[in-house]
């Protein structure tokens, strides 16, 4: 398990958990939820992830509070 900010562009991952409840609830509103599949699209500062066809930008500090499991086979 790594934090979201350690993902490299192109990597896919599954969200494992959030550091606290308020991060979790705020993220849920944007479609980021435990078990959700995401793909790191780019990292021009913030981490840009795709969830389905939707694209979300997550600030660096916040991305350290979201933990994911990298899906190795889908590189």
């Amino acid at each position, binding site marked *: 398990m790594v934090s979201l900010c350690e993902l490299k562009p192109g990597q896919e991952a599954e969200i494992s958990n959030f550091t606290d409840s308020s991060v979790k609830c705020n993220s849920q509103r944007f*479609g980021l*939820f435990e078990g959700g599949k995401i793909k790191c699209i780019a990292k021009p*500062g913030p981490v840009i992830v795709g*969830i389905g066809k939707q694209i979300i*930008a997550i600030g660096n500090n916040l991305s350290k509070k979201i933990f994911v499991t990298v899906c190795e086979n889908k590189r």
Partner: protein
Amino acid sequence: MSIFGCKSCDKCSNKSCSEEIIAGKLPKVALVGNPNVGKSVIFNALSGFYVEVSNYPGTTVDVSKAFTEFGEIIDTPGAYSLGNYTDDEIVTQNIVQSADIIVNIVSALSLERDLFLTQQLIDMGFAVILVVNQIDEAEKKGIYTDCDKLGQMMGIKVIPAVAIRNKGIAEIVNAVKNGEFIISDNKTPFVNKLLGQQDLSRCDRFLKLLELESQESKNPEDRDIICVERRKIVNELVDKVISHTEKRKSLSDYIGDLLLNPVSGVIIALIILYLLFQTIGVFVSGQIVDFLFTNLDQKYSPWIEGLVKQVIPAPYINEILVGEFGALTMTVEIVIGVLLPLIIAFYLFMAVLEDSGYLPRLAVLTDNLLNKIGLNGRAVIPILLGFGCGAMGTITTRILGSKKERTIATAILGVTIPCAAQQGIIIALIAAIGGLKIWAIYLGVIFIIMALVGTVLDRLIPGKSTDLLIDLPPIRLPLLFNTFNKTLFRVINFLKEAIPLFAFSSVLITILSMAGFLKWLQQALSPIVVHMLRLPAEFSDIFVMGLIRRDMASVGLLGMAGLEENTGVLTDLQILVASIVVTLFVPCIAALIVIYKERGLKEASLVWIGAFIISILTGAILSRILQFII
């Protein structure tokens, strides 16, 4: 299933409850949805042209309303959920509370995210019609939605739509007319468990659930369970109603990728800024302003002067109305001749950037930079708006997540960001004295001051800044009608604010001038102006005008630099120093009033005094250093 749950609402302002609608009164229909799902397009299609746009009381958030044969339609600002996370969400929440019918608009491109709000609306007990918009865009990307199945599963009417092609609009109207809005029984189980047993009116249910789900909820564990269960319901729905096929990337995807790449993104941002400079600085402020100002000055002003002098033969009143700083001469020349074209151009440009989906990408690119001064990428939006009008930018700092960020952004806006009117004139001034070197010095100085103000405040103010979390909509071609509409409303709002202030300031200046106060102030300020800034003593006129409205100070500077007639009294070095001092000088009255309202007396005074000291000190230092460079 029942239609309308709320029979009597003494707790909210809901006056048009079910019985009244049945008795023939028109229902209140609120359009609710996440940002960028096409709400405004649907609103425009439903409402025709009779639209009333106003700011929601106490906010800058635009709320459009229209009265149609089937009901009063209210557009709400985009919200990811009903809660107290942002200003937009609070406004939406207030509108929804008094609505009879909710038309919830979701995008077929992001159902997984959007249905979260739909499920919340159902949990709150609203009568909902669901519109799945952008079906065509989604199909191009290989996403197919089974709307009938979605309707069955959620227990509400679902209408597929392509709003920009007018598809689905008639169906929405019919659904409202035929009463096809339903309060679904398919609520989140845990919500039912918490609220189900109690016999609650809709308003009570709504308020209870809001309290449970707020950021300050007393039972964060309950809030968590609701979130997780709701998410589970939405995931199951999406699994069953959406089918995917792989499609190749579209042009919009490629452009989106380029904008997010740190190298190409920055290059594109620079190109956009250059285009902004070319349209506003060269074409609009050069040719259009020149044409309008000359015509007004040579044709309109002598005509109105003659007319007023004939009708009112009193010299004092004449001086106020049509004298050197006359309310009917100078105000009109400046508002119509200089400001109006600049403001229209600026707002049009902003509206295009906004509607094309570029602004959030700019927020992403600037996030790291803004993090260094205690802000996040979202702050680029009030700062950009501040380049239009400082007052507007300051109000928009409300979108920032914490008090600390709002204070830093307000200070940066108040001290360093020149508004559209100033920029046009500063751009003209700098273009007149020459080239890249001058530009580099001007921008460099402003940038350094901005970084200093931000860094110092970031260190001084306790507390943490919030993190960036935004949705990046697909890159789209802006719809002409929407872009023009937006520009028109902003221009009208600006004029409403600007004209009285301009008229007031010109009257004040005339009176001060007639009373000999200007001469006295010039002498009082002359040690600062002459010795510290090494500028002519007349420059204190510009300070006086700057107190009233900062852009007028720039206009005064144009006159002194001799760009209008050949009466210039300033050297190149003085023009550059003066441009910088005027940029950094105190916020105009309009902006100051807004800062006071938003941030209180203490912060408004600090911004004002800070701007005064910073501008004079910077000017004094530059006038001594730059003589060796220019």
